[in-house]
């Protein structure tokens, strides 16, 4: 049977436009209790650095009015650990995945790219925008020149599908998208988390106590920002875009397609609804059939046309 939600991003084909976002899906094996992960479009791994990282010591997560803030600090098992322990599992289960990588220097990113090439990793997503690491990846993501240099360096070393994940914490996301394109990126994903702070006070015996987390804000509250950013990127470059930010429903997903996303990632919603990726994918397929669209591309074209009408 023809797959009506098949999604082509440049030269790479995915079985659906529904992916899961880095940092919310581990390395996929943890989700076996909720769904068959091999059925979803792709999972993006938790960010992987050259060496293992322990992450931050302070309180790492806090809920906000319309989402959550995390300050994990890229805790991960390092690329050697990933290749040894996680990659064989992903491959054995036939899970389509995109490897998210994070370096702390240009050389580290380049080396990570090279290792990914050597190991036939089909697609990587560069994390150039983590707000929770003191030195390193954020700086690359906020200046067009340094981002251009970084992406160029990785491009030289990596011959697979190269996605760059952009941060919204910048003045002109258009310039950064253009820098990615010039440097040879295949695709842009957006947005990473917004910088945020939440603090909760408790009055104990007349004295205030606080719980504070400053870090990356995600969840339903960031959706309007994400839609705006994806739309601005769409107008600036003709690269495929993977949109994300507070997606919980089919309607949310359609909005991202309308403003210019070719695929989407589900992030924070995975924590609350661990089987949501499969559910939204099924709902999308049913919506296309029920409303007599030819396929996903037909739906995207029509909703985009409507969005772009004066």
């Amino acid at each position, binding site marked *: 049977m023809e797959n009506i939600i098949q999604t082509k991003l440049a030269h790479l084909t995915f079985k659906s436009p529904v992916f899961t976002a880095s940092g919310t899906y581990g390395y996929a094996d943890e989700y076996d209790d909720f769904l068959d992960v091999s059925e979803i479009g792709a999972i993006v791994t938790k960010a992987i650095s050259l060496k293992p990282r322990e992450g931050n010591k302070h309180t790492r997560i806090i809920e906000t009015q319309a989402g959550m803030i995390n300050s994990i600090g890229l805790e991960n098992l390092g690329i050697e650990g990933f290749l040894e322990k996680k990659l064989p599992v992903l491959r054995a289960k036939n899970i389509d995945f995109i490897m998210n990588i994070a370096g702390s220097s240009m050389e580290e990113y380049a080396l990570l790219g090279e290792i990914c090439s050597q190991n036939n990793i089909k697609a990587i997503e560069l994390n150039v925008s983590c707000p929770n690491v003191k030195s390193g990846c954020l700086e690359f993501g906020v200046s067009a020149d340094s981002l251009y240099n970084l992406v160029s360096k990785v491009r030289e070393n990596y011959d697979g599908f190269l996605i760059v994940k952009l941060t919204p914490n910048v003045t002109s996301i258009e310039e950064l998208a253009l820098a990615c394109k010039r440097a040879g990126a295949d695709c842009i994903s957006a947005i990473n988390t917004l910088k945020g702070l939440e603090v909760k006070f408790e009055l104990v015996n007349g004295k205030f106590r606080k719980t504070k987390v400053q870090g990356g804000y995600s969840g339903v509250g960031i959706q309007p920002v994400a839609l705006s950013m994806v739309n601005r990127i769409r107008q600036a470059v003709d690269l495929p875009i993977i949109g994300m930010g507070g997606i919980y429903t089919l309607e949310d997903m359609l909005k991202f397609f309308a403003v210019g996303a070719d695929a989407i990632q589900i992030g924070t919603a995975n924590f*609350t609804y661990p089987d949501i990726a499969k559910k939204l994918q099924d709902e999308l397929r049913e919506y296309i059939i029920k409303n007599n669209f030819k396929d996903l591309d037909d739906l995207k074209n029509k909703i985009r046309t409507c969005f772009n009408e004066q």
Partner: protein
Amino acid sequence: MAEHKKIHKGIVKNLKKCSKDIYLLELESETSFVSTAGQFISIFCERTLRRPFSIYQNDGNTVSVLFREIGKGTKYLTSLKENDIVDFSGPFGNGFEIKNKRALLIGAGAGVAPVSYLKTELEKRGIESLLISGFRDKDDIPSCLNSDFIVTDDGSNGIKSNVIDFARLKVKEFNPEIIYSCGPLIVLKKSSELAKELGIEAQVSMEKVMACSIGVCRGCVIDVIKEGQVQNASVCKDGPVFKGSEVVWKI
């Protein structure tokens, strides 16, 4: 294909106010599951993050939790009515490791839930146990306990003592071979210290704000010492029950 059996629909069978702000919530699960004392379920509370609760009782069909109404999530739970449908996931984590040893159980506040569950499990196996539970005052004591001794900080009901001081008194006659505890961090730390003094094992049930409940987000990590090194452990997946001697106490 693996069975995807960790998301459940629960019908509210009973929501009972057991003390000033501690409630008992009983859910009849559409899908039955087995659990061990110390494991938890995560209930969708119409907020961004699910709320994790140690299981209080589980007979395979009906699972219950004890919780204190403290914020928006738990306020949602107290607004539930009989026959409402609740979305919950689990059971998650590693519960208490049951050993054939005379057990001192220490529970404080709503933390009494998993040790009370454990007491039932120990009794089934014929293992001798003594459950001491501690509360702030008489209005704080839930009406549904299988506790051997109840102490209150102000002495308004039961014995006036903090739960650890009273446990110290009791160990002389009870002579425990293992201590299991759940409650505020300070109670867990002092339970571990007491076990260390007695040269016996302590198992403690830790608590942290969680996002995913399954170890992926790394939001609920604590420091533990394993093989002589400080390492990260997630409360949700590696815990919530840890050996007291492994926890790096930050209090």
